[in-house]
């Protein structure tokens, strides 16, 4: 059951819009602290799905307040991965939610209420504002302040003890008062009409669902949890430390005999305050790891809950540094070195006799042990031409927690490929467009990467996919093009100058390809902030296929919207040759037999029947109805 007088603020910081929202959210946090609420702030990289859900499960706040991008069914934080969606929001059951985001009151809001959320405040429009300085605190920016102060009034009213209904009324009233300001004292400003227009738009876009009589603040005398001795930010493993303080009311009067909890990464220890209201957790010791520690009083019939701030404690921190980076290109069977130093962050000393593992993505390549000075050196060799993503990792032990190097992309040899490896003359735009060309695999194996020539302006994301072409699309026939593999997604940044080049996209799960079969290599992009991302094609050496579609999961099958005869796209697929295993397909039917079966548009007889097939995607067809 979510706990009253607790709230969680989601404060992303990933783009300039979020930065301004972040600064506005700080004012909400200030109000929460002033009111003595138990506040969890999920800032910057913490404003993502996993940390937010973990914090909700751990701290169980009644109120969730967030700023960020969104659409009808999705609310995102510091990355594009949604924090809440209409189908994944059960963690909000029993809570009151306010999201300053676009359109979420249309789908996400009703979904929250349907899974047991108490109330939901949000917007059924794209929340819009005007500003001239994204770096400014919006409370001090001439045009932005009315927008952000008005929206913030909703959570602030709740923090100050109002019901959801009061919060809605105060929020609307705040919008109205700013509209009035721009119609009176600021009406000579050239942008006044536009400011009024968008304040009205946001005001009328506010939607509140659920129980409007609900509130977030517990009834009772407010309490203060004072800290006398706080945990240090860094400790050696099992190094003793003490966390102590006192519980008082707001008048400073001690509260003796109260049960208080020490919470360490969700695990709770309990003690009781002494005659002077003091509490202490002495001689604590922790294994290596990163911990979030606080002490809380959960409240009783007379007193409201209180808690300390959260302290982040890094126990047994280690650092792995690279002194010998791997080369970006090596030959097949050519040895190369990858090395560095593993050290104790507190003393700076090297850590001897520690295991260091070399990984290629999720595959363990080799292992070594640090020397007396903490140095490690890996001798690496690959016997197959391919691209690898290498990093070294100390896996951690009870004394020191794990640390790892950055990723290094290495091309081993020149992997065989099929496709087009020359730069096309013409330029196409990938904005909201899937674009691909069809090529034939010369031999069987597993596709390891798609390499595409692209141009980037500002910032966005790309990913690629490979489709098996069972029947190529024509102007009269959508064809039959089936998805068999999706690459990693990569972010690009090119600001202020654009850049271009061949970009590699690795398959985390390399799909099988067969000699002589046709495959469509498709790329897709999501640009941010009016960015652009282009591909190259042509001239006049084949077709490219296109479909306008908002960036999401790759469609299966791929049905192109148009076929352009102006040229092949500059994209190719690298693979590792391999004799693919055969599997036996067995098709039976009941209660009748003799049903005709087709595999990849070719008859394989009638049921019961079998067919040996090479591993990969195949199309099996039986008629919907048969005559008996």
């Amino acid at each position: 059951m979510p706990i009253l007088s607790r709230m969680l603020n989601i404060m992303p910081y990933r783009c300039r819009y979020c930065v301004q929202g972040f600064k506005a959210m700080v004012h909400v946090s200030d109000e929460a602290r002033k009111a003595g609420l138990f506040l969890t702030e999920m800032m910057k990289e913490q404003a993502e799905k996993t940390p937010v859900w973990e914090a909700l499960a751990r701290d169980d706040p009644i109120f969730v307040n967030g700023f960020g991008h969104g659409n009808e069914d999705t609310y995102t934080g510091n990355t594009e991965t949604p924090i809440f969606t209409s189908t994944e929001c059960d963690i909000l059951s029993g809570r009151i939610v306010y999201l300053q985001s676009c359109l979420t009151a249309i789908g996400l809001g009703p979904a929250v209420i349907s899974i047991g959320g108490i109330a939901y405040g949000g917007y059924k429009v794209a929340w819009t504002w005007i500003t001239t300085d994204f770096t400014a605190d919006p409370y001090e920016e001439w045009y932005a302040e009315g927008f952000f102060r008005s929206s913030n009034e909703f959570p602030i009213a709740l923090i100050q003890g109002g019901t959801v209904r009061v919060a809605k009324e105060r929020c609307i009233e705040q919008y109205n008062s700013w509209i009035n300001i721009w119609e009176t004292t600021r009406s000579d400003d050239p942008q006044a009409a536009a400011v009024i227009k968008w304040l009205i738009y946001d005001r009328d876009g506010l939607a509140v669902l659920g129980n409007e009589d609900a509130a977030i603040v517990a009834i009772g005398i407010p309490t203060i949890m004072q800290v006398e001795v706080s945990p240090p930010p860094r400790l050696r493993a099992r190094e003793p430390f003490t966390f102590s303080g006192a519980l008082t009311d707001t008048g400073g009067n001690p509260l003796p005999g109260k049960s208080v909890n020490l919470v360490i990464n969700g695990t709770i220890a309990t003690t009781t305050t002494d005659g002077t209201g003091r509490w202490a957790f002495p001689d604590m010791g922790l294994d290596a790891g990163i911990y979030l520690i606080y002490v809380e009083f959960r409240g009783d019939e007379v007193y409201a809950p209180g808690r300390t701030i959260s302290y982040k404690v890094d126990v047994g921190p280690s650092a792995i540094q690279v002194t010998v980076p791997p080369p970006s290109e090596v030959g097949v069977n050519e040895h190369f070195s990858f090395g560095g130093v593993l050290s104790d962050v507190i003393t700076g000393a090297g850590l001897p006799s520690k295991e260091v593992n070399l990984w290629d993505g999720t595959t363990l390549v080799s292992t070594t042990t640090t020397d007396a000075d903490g140095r490690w050196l890996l001798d690496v060799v690959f016997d197959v031409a391919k691209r690898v993503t290498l990093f070294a990792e100390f896996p951690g032990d009870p004394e020191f927690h794990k640390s790892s190097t950055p990723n290094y992309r290495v091309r081993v040899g020149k992997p065989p490929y099929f496709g087009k490896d020359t730069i096309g003359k013409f330029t196409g735009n990938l904005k909201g467009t899937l674009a691909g060309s069809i090529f034939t695999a010369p031999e069987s194996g597993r596709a390891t990467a798609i390499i595409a020539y692209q141009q980037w302006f500002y910032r966005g994301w790309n990913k690629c996919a490979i489709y098996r072409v069972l029947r190529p699309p024509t102007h009269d026939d959508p064809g039959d093009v089936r998805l068999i593999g999706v690459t990693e997604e990569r972010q690009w940044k090119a600001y202020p100058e654009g850049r271009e080049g061949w970009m590699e996209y690795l398959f985390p799960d390399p799909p099988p390809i067969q000699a002589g079969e046709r495959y469509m290599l498709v790329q897709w992009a999501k640009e941010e902030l009016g960015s652009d991302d282009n591909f190259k094609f042509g001239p006049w050496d084949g077709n490219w296929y296109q479909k306008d579609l908002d960036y999401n999961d790759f469609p299966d099958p791929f049905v192109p919207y148009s076929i352009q005869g102006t040229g092949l796209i500059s994209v190719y697929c690298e693979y590792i040759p391999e004799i693919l295993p055969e599997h036996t397909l067995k098709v039976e039917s009941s209660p009748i037999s003799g049903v005709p079966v087709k595999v990849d548009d070719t008859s394989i007889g009638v049921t019961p029947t079998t067919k040996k097939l090479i591993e990969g995607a195949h199309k099996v067809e039986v008629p919907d109805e048969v005559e008996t």
Partner: protein
Amino acid sequence: MRRLPKGEETLPIVEVEGRFLTPQELAREHLRAILALPEIRVSDELLIERVRRRIAQGREPTIYRLGFPMVLTPVEQLRHMEMRDEIGIQLIEAERKLLEEELTILRGG
């Protein structure tokens, strides 16, 4: 005292016999009669024209949104309105509400 934001008096508020008329262009008695009507219907074209003129006067700024597209310059706003796509319809309705607000001010409300 609420008043029309500066420059808004130069934008049309009503269409009469195919002409878009501003408060300045309407004779005072005509303006009073129009404002006395319980409802003034305005076309999308009139609303688009208001934005076009406001842009020409440098009074329609770039707007920022928490959804895609996250930024709309004045020219992009106008293009969406002229195309009457999903975003354009939102922009037209926003302008309609602003005009309703301004008519309330003109009525002395």
